[in-house]
């Protein structure tokens, strides 16, 4: 079973890397989402799979009786899912704002790749746009 999941992780990774390298930033988001799931699956598989043995401690006992499923990877994954979700949300808002500013999400577009820093000469004129309700 671990072998099958390992192959699946590899497959999902391959797909996500393909998407991430496509050069369109919207596809990068999908690639990122896929890759987070691949990593979560990897941690899950690395914790070894156990069928039908929940990690529960019977009433009156101090420790689980007999082998049970490994609960730690699930705790790790839960943390990673929460963090990954926050990152994904931020990434989407960032792309949305960037699209509103530059009209493009194509990584080859010079408007996006332009690296001249903001021309913020003239200190303190307050010309920096400051709209309410940041992300």
């Amino acid at each position, binding site marked *: 079973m671990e072998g099958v999941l390992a192959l699946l992780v590899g497959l999902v990774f391959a797909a996500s890397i393909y998407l991430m390298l496509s050069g369109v930033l919207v596809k990068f988001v999908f690639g990122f989402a896929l890759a987070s799931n691949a990593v979560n699956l990897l941690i899950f598989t690395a914790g070894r799979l156990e069928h039908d043995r929940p990690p529960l401690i019977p009433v009156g006992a101090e420790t689980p009786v007999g082998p049970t499923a490994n609960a730690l990877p699930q705790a790790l994954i839960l943390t990673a899912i929460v963090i990954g979700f926050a990152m994904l949300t931020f*990434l989407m808002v960032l792309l949305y704002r960037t699209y509103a500013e*530059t009209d493009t999400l194509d990584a080859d577009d010079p*408007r996006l790749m332009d690296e001249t*820093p903001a021309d913020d000469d003239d200190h303190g004129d307050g010309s920096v746009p400051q709209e309410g309700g940041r992300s």
Partner: protein
Amino acid sequence: MSMLLVWPILLPMLTAIATVLCRAKVDTAHWMTLVGAALHLAAAVALLAAVHEGRILAVQMGGWPAPFGITLVADAFSAVMVLITAVIHSAVMVYSRRDIDPDQVRAGYYVFMQILAAAVCGAFLTGDLFNLYVWFEVMLMASFGLLVMGRRRAQLTGGIKYVTLNLVSTLLFLAVIGLIYGMTGTLNMADLHGKIALVPHPPLVTAAAMLLMVAFGIKAALFPLFFWLPAAYPTLPAAVAAFFSGLLSKVGVYAMIRMFTLVFTADAGVTHHTILFTVAGFTMVFGVISAAAQMEMRRILSFHIVSQIGYMVLGLSLMTPLALTGAIIYLLHNILAKSNLFLAGGLVRQAAGSFHLDRVGGIYNNYGLLSIGFLVSALALAGMPPLSGFWAKLLVIQATLESRHYAMALVAAAVGLLTLFSMIKIWAEVFWKPAPPPADAHQAPEGRRKLSAWMLAPMLALAGITLVMGLAMEPVIRFAEIAAGQLLDPRAYVTAVLEGMP
């Protein structure tokens, strides 16, 4: 006693919560963060005093014994990194009082900065790999917020490069955590030190180490992976850029030094002496050559961040006591000098209205203190004796020579010379050259603008620390030797963490 390890993380967190509550009152927020930063500094000093003379402190959070719970550990290296974080944090907080618009304060600038400081300290103190990942994510999230705060176009496009590459880096890091857990069944770093040797297929460990090297390499801005840094950092306000340039990429270097001395040492011939060694050389050379081509102060400084990282990784790659001593001193000196150069850059803009070398000039005539502060840091960065950078470079190059890598020693020395070239370029263009006529005709040529003491004082203080560190190098070297000894022989570290273990 055990709380000593918690305060450097907890205090900025508490300050962050306090500033969230009153972020509409800009003045209150200013004072609150200043008090918070001072307390943070005090906590860091107390921690350093406690690990003095080679003691190692460890505390198990929540009372779960290692290796099951989350461990916080402070050895000499961690403690001194926490201290330098607190120093930069305090300086930047004083500087922010004038540099940051009230609008940005209302948008939560101080909150993000405090969380960032807490996360950096957490990353330095944690003894658990998954916890390190969590601190990295906290750090990333706070830095994302700061990065796009001004919402200018360049900030957004620079931010995209920073965000995407760093997200890939954390995914790789998380994948390594899964792989290591699958091989050893533990994520406690001290426990890993022993258990990693028991893995039946050592090449698998090397593969995981390489993946981790890529993950940390993106964070630390190593050679083929550094492109996000010069795209993102120059778009930031000076105070934020100072904090980022001093500390964020250095957390990657710290994590790399920690993992590649404590855990992944079995295959040092490949991972350290071949790959890290080569990468360090390329990082130094590419960074410094790219910097030479730039004409904007912050972009020059950003490329130098990359170049300087090469020296630290070179120290790690040699893995001798002298090389690690050099790497640690280099880390400390570089955080101080680099942050300070960005602070000075902000002051130059305040004085002359631009970061572009073409558009400013005559600073030396009008602003003596600013010129001295910049010159001390710039010469320290370039490695002029007797400043701190000279000793740091000397130790690293001496260690390179002792390991018989003569060509690399030559490269390191030449990169130092090119660094000097860039610094002299800024000095000649910004400080010595007469001020160019204003671009706009309607803008009357103005005399000497008044620099804010809130911005000047922290810049001079950091320059002073750089100077003192260079003049009183002996205790610093002795301390770094203790820290390097602990890194190369981690038995005391492992015992401190696992002593309660059955």
